[in-house]
């Protein structure tokens, strides 16, 4: 599941306070240009949020947003997802299930590796055996996502057809094949520091935390890129803004609301705000007091003033969410009534729960834009219903690991992810990332039933029932669907503006003048 939570704390950004703001406010827009010649683009520089030595180029273990941008340039997955989280065939031409969804027949495109070899079924089987096999220096990301793949029963049908067997039925398997860590590597490949891929760009050099250089691959199956040379640069928040303003970069990803506002008035720069890109939530531990009481959870859902949280903590750069995940994605329950701020109803629900003088610990950290602000504002909103919320601020570096098991009430921001993957990874008994401690046999059964259902309509109605349960009494309080701000020099066309994790996000092979 391509769900990296985005927004790791910006360390240098933290040191500098709002210095980027100062730059933006002082300097008018003025953009230089990377050298361009003829109708093609000589060099295109994209700058993304960096992470120092933690950055990786091995498709099996890379898990950061910037890693994924490199993967999109150098490799291909069998499938990717579109902005609605529906699978789109890439290196695969098609994927067809058998009647009960336990075997998938994948047909490959007529594509070639950067070294000229043909892409074959053996490459697919090797990739699967690698990511499901023993870990090297780091565990393989897709080992959880693809744990239901039964390698011993999977087989090569012919050179370009492969049959993948599953241990249990899944009609959502193609989405799993689009997840992080599933890019196809060449049969027998071991040296991932000098990657040979099938992607639109050939590897030239890589320095972690600094730069990837790659050159156009003329024989790319989806057409040769217009860009001759691609640079993917790593930088913190303020530096991405500065680099774009100073003309050192042509594209800057993941801009803060303040940076986006600054650039909106700049000449020669186009800012894109992609909705439904960062899903903000409070997570209540449903297996611990006081949130093991259904009515306390319901009360909390009425305490949040979502409009105010969006306006203050996210500077208005988001839409209000409705306690269910995945607005804009396939299977979203659009028809559920919007939860609104209702302190009196919250008081009533707390009385009904038999709780008085409720005090809650809210564990937060500057792990993404607006977390600490939202936590403090929520504490104030809760006090309107007579509830005391103590905000405890931790470290942004390790927040997601620390908050996974600890506390009563925590926070988070999720990147776009298909709704079935969201259920599977966060809301089943034994899910690896079960932040709300949610365990409901009825819910688990509905999920299993949905995955085993071939009809899309029937699946949709099963997922809808799961959404209803969560909307009524789940542990997640989703309060915002934030925009994803990126910006590029206005002279380019086809700048990628997809939601993070989707196909048309930080994919530069279609960029043109």
């Amino acid at each position: 599941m391509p769900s990296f939570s985005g927004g790791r704390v910006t360390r240098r950004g933290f040191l500098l306070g709002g210095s980027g703001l100062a730059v933006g406010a002082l300097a008018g827009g003025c953009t230089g240009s990377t050298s361009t010649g003829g109708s093609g683009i000589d060099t295109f520089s994209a700058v993304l949020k960096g992470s120092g030595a933690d950055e990786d180029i091995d498709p099996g273990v890379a898990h950061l947003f910037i890693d994924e941008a490199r993967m999109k340039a150098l490799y291909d997955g069998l499938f990717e997802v579109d902005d609605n989280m529906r699978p789109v065939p890439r290196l695969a031409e098609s994927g067809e299930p058998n009647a009960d969804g336990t075997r998938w027949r994948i047909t490959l495109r007529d594509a070639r590796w950067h070294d000229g070899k043909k892409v074959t079924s053996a490459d697919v089987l090797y990739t699967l055996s690698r990511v499901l096999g023993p870990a090297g220096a780091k565990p393989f990301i897709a080992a959880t996502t693809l744990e239901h793949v039964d390698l011993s029963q999977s087989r090569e049908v012919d050179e370009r057809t492969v049959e993948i067997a599953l241990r249990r039925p899944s009609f959502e398997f193609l989405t799993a094949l689009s997840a992080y860590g599933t890019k196809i590597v060449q049969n027998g490949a071991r040296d991932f520091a000098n990657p040979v891929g099938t992607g639109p760009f050939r590897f030239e050099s890589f320095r972690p935390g600094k730069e990837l250089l790659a050159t156009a691959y003329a024989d790319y199956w989806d057409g040769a890129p217009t860009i001759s040379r691609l640079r993917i640069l790593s930088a913190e928040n303020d530096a991405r803004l500065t680099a774009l303003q100073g003309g050192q970069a042509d594209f800057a990803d993941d801009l803060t609301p303040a940076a986006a506002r600054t650039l909106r008035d700049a000449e020669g720069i186009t800012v894109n705000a992609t909705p439904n890109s960062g899903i903000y939530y409070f997570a209540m531990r449903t297996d611990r007091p006081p949130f093991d009481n259904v009515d306390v959870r319901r009360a909390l859902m009425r305490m949040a003033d979502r409009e105010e949280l969006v306006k203050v903590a996210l500077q208005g750069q988001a839409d209000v969410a409705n306690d269910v995940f995945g607005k804009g994605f396939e299977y979203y329950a659009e028809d559920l009534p919007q939860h609104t701020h209702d302190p009196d109803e919250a008081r009533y629900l707390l009385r009904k729960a038999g709780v008085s003088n409720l005090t809650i610990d809210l564990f937060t950290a500057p792990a993404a834009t607006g977390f600490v602000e939202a936590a403090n504002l929520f504490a104030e909103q809760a006090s309107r219903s007579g509830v005391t919320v103590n905000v405890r601020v931790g470290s942004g570096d390790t927040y997601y690991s620390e908050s996974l098991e600890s506390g009563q009430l925590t926070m988070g921001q999720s990147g776009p992810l298909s709704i079935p993957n969201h259920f599977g990874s966060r809301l089943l008994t034994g899910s690896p990332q079960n932040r709300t401690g949610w365990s409901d046999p009825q819910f688990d059964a509905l999920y299993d039933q949905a995955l085993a259902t071939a009809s899309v309509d029937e699946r949709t109605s099963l997922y809808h029932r799961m959404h209803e349960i969560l909307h009524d009494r789940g542990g997640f309080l989703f309060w915002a669907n934030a925009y994803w701000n990126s910006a590029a020099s206005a002279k380019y066309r086809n700048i990628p503006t997809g939601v993070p994790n989707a196909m048309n996000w930080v994919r530069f092979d279609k960029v043109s003048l």
Partner: protein
Amino acid sequence: MHARFVLRRVLIGAGQVFILLALVFGLSLLLPGDAADVQASDTFSEGQRAETRHLLGLDIAPLTRFLTWLGGVVTGDFGTSYASAEPVTEVIGGPFAVTAVLAVLTTVILLPVAGWAGFAAGLRPGSVRDRVITTVSVFFDSIPDFVLAVLLVAYVAIGLGLFPATFLGVDLPTMLTEPGYLVLPLTVMVARVAAPLVRLVRAGVINVLAEPYIEQARRLGVGRTSLLLRHVAPNALGPAMQELGRTGDGLLSGVLIVEAVFVLPGIATTLIDAIGNRDQPVILAIVLITGVVAIAVNTLIDLVGQRMVPRRVQS
């Protein structure tokens, strides 16, 4: 006496470095979470998180890890980075070179600039020249260096387009062959450390000039140049040398600001990243090297200071 003095300083220095390393390691353990927590993808199961911890060797007792690392250092092995799985020397080699270039160039520019300005001001206290120099140095002393850096980026780099705004994607050879890159960072670095030096040199010059032996030398007909170089300079620069030692210590924090604003891939940002990644082998190696350098520089400056003003004899 000097050999004994040097030996003593080396032994004290080694002790200081050891205490520093132990302290930093202890403090790094107090940070919430560890490298495995930082690296955990949010699809990881509990088993994968435990596996990450095991692969990194974080399931080994901290004291054992620390002593093993120290043992390795003695044989020249600085260990392996948790974050990148590369040898630590590879992670820190490039950044150290960048920071060293910055520090050396800063010093090379700083000494003549601060020496000249301090002398120029101190020789004629109260003159227009003195007042201009003093005002400028007070200005640079009172403006925080990150404000100066951000102003330079906003107006000079982005506004006027005179110099590159950041070092994004620039490697060391490019940095040295295209001097435009280094102008703004060096301006900030020099401005940061020059101001206190200028004022100390100025004060030193004024004090020394008021001494009776200067008057005496003048009466004996010692020439102006000789007077300044042989009699004024050594005595006036004593306090400034001490300040220069402190400058060396402060350079790292100055470098940090400059590195952050200009996206210079130096050692300070590497250290901040390493702390964020809970990458203890890298943290310790950087602390070890900067600690040794700081102590060496201070010892050197003490020795030079002693030669210049021999009356402060070490017991």
